[in-house]
Structure formats: structure tokens, C-alpha cells
């Protein structure tokens, strides 16, 4: 049993803060698109899109990115871009857009590195920002988040588990020793 770092309310507030900060930093929502990274990042991206809808009455496109084929710990040099992209659901062009990548936990930075490559393969966005619910530190690459729900300093022996009610039984972030 882990220790609850963010409960349902705190998680919702974190996403609300991130939403306001996205509007603040981008001076509005023009050309904004959200891309959620694999499982839980997608749900978080949708929740941010829901908030933008409430706030600005605009529908921001949400894409789903599967970075499995871009991971640097799997050998897949022979894969073509078409095959690498097969599991994505991004039915809009990223060309000239302000892309917000959304993930649940920022840790080594390798997932984000892979996501950046994947997005770049799709086109040339105007900018890419990173929003994460939790930043737990221990980066192995020069990557940082632009929007952070909560900084949770952790040791590498610990695990951070994010639950989202869409597929888990609750909304919570737990630290497991």
C-alpha cells in the first residue's frame, strides 16, 4: 500500500492549475493542440481539453501517442516511420501548431525524448511544451517540464503510481516505498 501524495481533489486542482498556466503562457489557445502520451497521459490530456472547453468554449484537438517503437531500450532500427506510427491516434496536422505533450510522470526524460522524436516525425510544430502531473526528478536527459502539477522529490528505489478514474478505480497519486 502506497502513501497518497495527491488525492482526487488535489489531482483535479493540479490539472486546473496546469490549464490556466497553458493559457497564460501561450497567451490564449490559438493553434493549441494536446497530445497525450500512451496510457494515462491521454486521459490527462482529455481532462485538460475539457477544462479549456469550459473556460474558453473552444474544442482543442487531442491526439494519442504511443511511443513504444521510439523507445531507446528496444532494438527497432529497421522499422519505417509508418510502422512506428501505427498505434497513434492523431487525426490532425501538427504543422505550425503549439503542441502540448501531456504525460503523468516525468522521471528519466526518456519517454519524453521518444515522444519528441515521434511528434517531429509527424511534422514541424511551431512549439512543443511539456505538461506533467508529477515531476519526480532523476533526469537522465536534458529535459524539463513547462507545466508541472506537483513536484514530488523521490528516491530511485521508490515508485510513483498514478491512478485515473477512467481506467483505474480512483483518482490518486501514490508513492510506493
Amino acid at each position, binding site marked *: 500500500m502506497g502513501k497518497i501524495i495527491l488525492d482526487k*481533489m*488535489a489531482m*483535479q*486542482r*493540479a490539472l*486546473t*492549475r496546469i*490549464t*490556466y*498556466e497553458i*493559457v*497564460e503562457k501561450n*497567451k*490564449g489557445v490559438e493553434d493549441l493542440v494536446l497530445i497525450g502520451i500512451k496510457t494515462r497521459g491521454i486521459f490527462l490530456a482529455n481532462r485538460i481539453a475539457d*477544462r479549456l472547453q*469550459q*473556460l474558453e468554449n473552444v474544442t482543442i484537438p487531442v491526439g494519442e501517442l504511443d511511443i513504444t517503437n521510439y523507445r531507446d531500450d528496444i532494438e527497432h532500427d529497421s522499422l519505417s516511420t509508418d510502422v512506428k506510427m501505427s498505434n497513434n491516434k492523431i487525426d490532425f496536422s501538427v504543422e505550425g501548431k503549439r503542441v502540448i505533450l501531456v504525460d503523468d510522470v516525468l522521471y528519466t526524460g526518456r519517454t519524453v525524448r521518444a515522444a519528441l522524436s515521434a511528434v517531429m516525425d509527424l511534422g514541424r510544430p511551431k512549439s512543443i511544451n511539456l505538461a506533467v502531473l508529477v515531476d519526480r526528478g532523476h533526469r537522465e536527459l536534458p529535459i*524539463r517540464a513547462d507545466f*508541472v502539477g*506537483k*513536484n514530488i522529490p523521490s528516491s530511485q528505489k521508490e515508485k510513483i503510481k498514478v491512478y485515473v478514474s477512467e481506467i483505474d478505480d480512483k483518482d490518486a497519486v501514490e508513492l510506493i516505498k
Partner: protein
Amino acid sequence: MTQRYLILEDGSAYAGKAFGSLATTTGELVANSTMNGYQEIISNQIYHNQIIVFTQTSIGNTGLAQNAYESVLPSAKGVIVREYENLATDHFKRISLDRYLKRHKIPGIYDVDTRQIRRHLQQKGNMMASIVDVADEHAFDQLHATVLTNQQVAQVATPKPYPNPDEGANVIVVDFGLKSGILRELSKRDCNVTVVPWSATSEAILDLDPDGVVLSTGPGAPGNLPESVLQMIREVQTQVPLLGIGLGHELFAMANGAKVDQLRVEHHGSNHPIREIITNEIFFSGQEQGYAVDSKSIDHAKLFITHIDLVNGTVQGLRHRDYPAFSVQFSPDGAPGPKDSVGLFDDFTEFMARRRDNNDDEY
């Protein structure tokens, strides 16, 4: 028991029995419908120069707790209750309401139909009233001749800065007559607080190197404060995260071009549902409100409306589009009332943490 009278500006009078001080006083009459927390209400400086009518039927039966005062020197002008009960069984009880009111020279009247007074106010609008010994012509003349100060903030806010040290974020609280609940919530989050007078300039505030600034609650009309306060807010909001509460919210709105109007009847209670627009969630909160931001006057290129009151439609929260500056009309600290929205203080500390992280990057 001594008979005393509550006389109203429109010529009506209510007879009741005295408790607390026997002073003769005059103030604006306001009704509070909160079910509990009379101690927090009476000691809140937002009631400066006001006579508080409690619609809750029995007041005084819990005694006063050491840790629930909202100010040191309450400045309400009277307390009107249906039933005053000095029989407290609460384990915190050390001081009775009667003794507290005597100490602070605040008169009370009980055995009055307070819900009738509430209805009266609802029909006739805000008005002044006096607590007197005899409800004769002379008393009404005195009431009509009384002019209350419009400098309420200067009466109750601290004249000098003072620290409330801790080891966390450096927060400057601008005191417009603050309720202690604000300091309590900042203390819980380890904030190193300095409270400064309402007239502090942005220069004086920024020289204290704040991570964030809070504009406190307080009494009276925001329009009674000089333009220099709005100028201070306009300058501070561009530099550090800003949180406005109550009067602080009204001032934040005015500083960003919105208009603030007086409500026909002041709203004091914790019974209005509030909707947070961004999540569509509904919650309750302590509310002490004599003024409201005019929603039509808001420049949407500058401000978001973040919260609205579902009963009267008033604007309950704002946020700046360009800066981490936001404000709420209600009291997120509760004290008294629900603490559903206390997380706004967490939002504030998170915005301060983000700003510190970002500044670190610049070195």
C-alpha cells in the same frame, strides 16, 4: 433582565432583552444565516461598524474557543439573537459570549425574532440601526443624524508591518482588515508571512522580496480606498503570484478595470452554492459580501471569471489571463463555513513554487 431596543432607519423597532455590554451603538444592520461559528463571525473585522443579526435560533451555547478568533479586537457594533444561551457544555469553553461582548463593549439583544428582521432587510434593503435603551423620537433622531465613517479599512487594518515567521515561501499579506483564517492557512503551509498596512506601495512590498502577495479581506466599499491601492495591485500582479480574498478580490477586479457595485442586501452566510467554471464542480463556502463585481464590466481579454454564485449569479472568482493572479469573493479558509475550497491556498503555494523553480533556471 434589562429591556433594550433595536431601532431601524425606516422607523421600525424591535424590543428584546440585553446581554453583553449596555452601550448605545449605531451601525449598518446585516443578517448572517450561518448555522455555526458565531465566534468567528463576531470577531471578523468585515463587521466593523455593523450590527449582526443571527438567523440561527440559539447563539452562545458552545462558548468561545481559544483558537477560533478572527481578530484580536472585534469592532462589530452589536449582536442580535433569537435566544442567548450561556449554558455551554463545550470542552473548549473558558469565556462566555456575554463576557466577551462586555470586554469589547459590544451590546447584544436576545429574545428578538431575528428571522423577521432578516425578511425585513430583504424587503427594504440595507439600512442603519441603533441599539438603545428607549425607542423614542430622540433615539430615532440620533440614529438619523449619525454618519458612519467610510474609512473602515484604516480603522481596523494594522498601521505597521509585522512578521509571522516560518520557513516556507515568503508571503506578503496586505492587510485591509484581515481575518485570522488567512494567516492560519498560510501558517499551515509553512509560509513566512509579513503583514503590511493597506497603504503599502508596490515598491515597499517588492523590496521585501516576496514569493507571493495576498490581498486580504476587509470591511466597507472598495471604492473608498484611494487609487494608489489599485496602482499597487497593477504593479505587483506582474511580478509575483497574487491571491485576493473578499475586499482584496473586489480591489483586484477594480485594478483590472472592472466595476464593483453594492448589493441591495448584504449576503452573509454559507448557504450559497458556488460553481467553479473550469471543472463545473459545485461547492459551498463561507460568504461575507456587501459588494459584488459587475460581470458586464469585466474585460475578458484581461480576466477570466472563474467562479459564480448559483443563487444570485454574482461573480465569485477571477483570474488574470497573463499572470498567476487570482481572487475569490468568498472565504476559502472557512472560519466559519465549509472548507471545500481551502485548496485555493495550495494553488497559491504551487504558483509560488513554480515561480521559484523558473527563477532558478534563469541563473
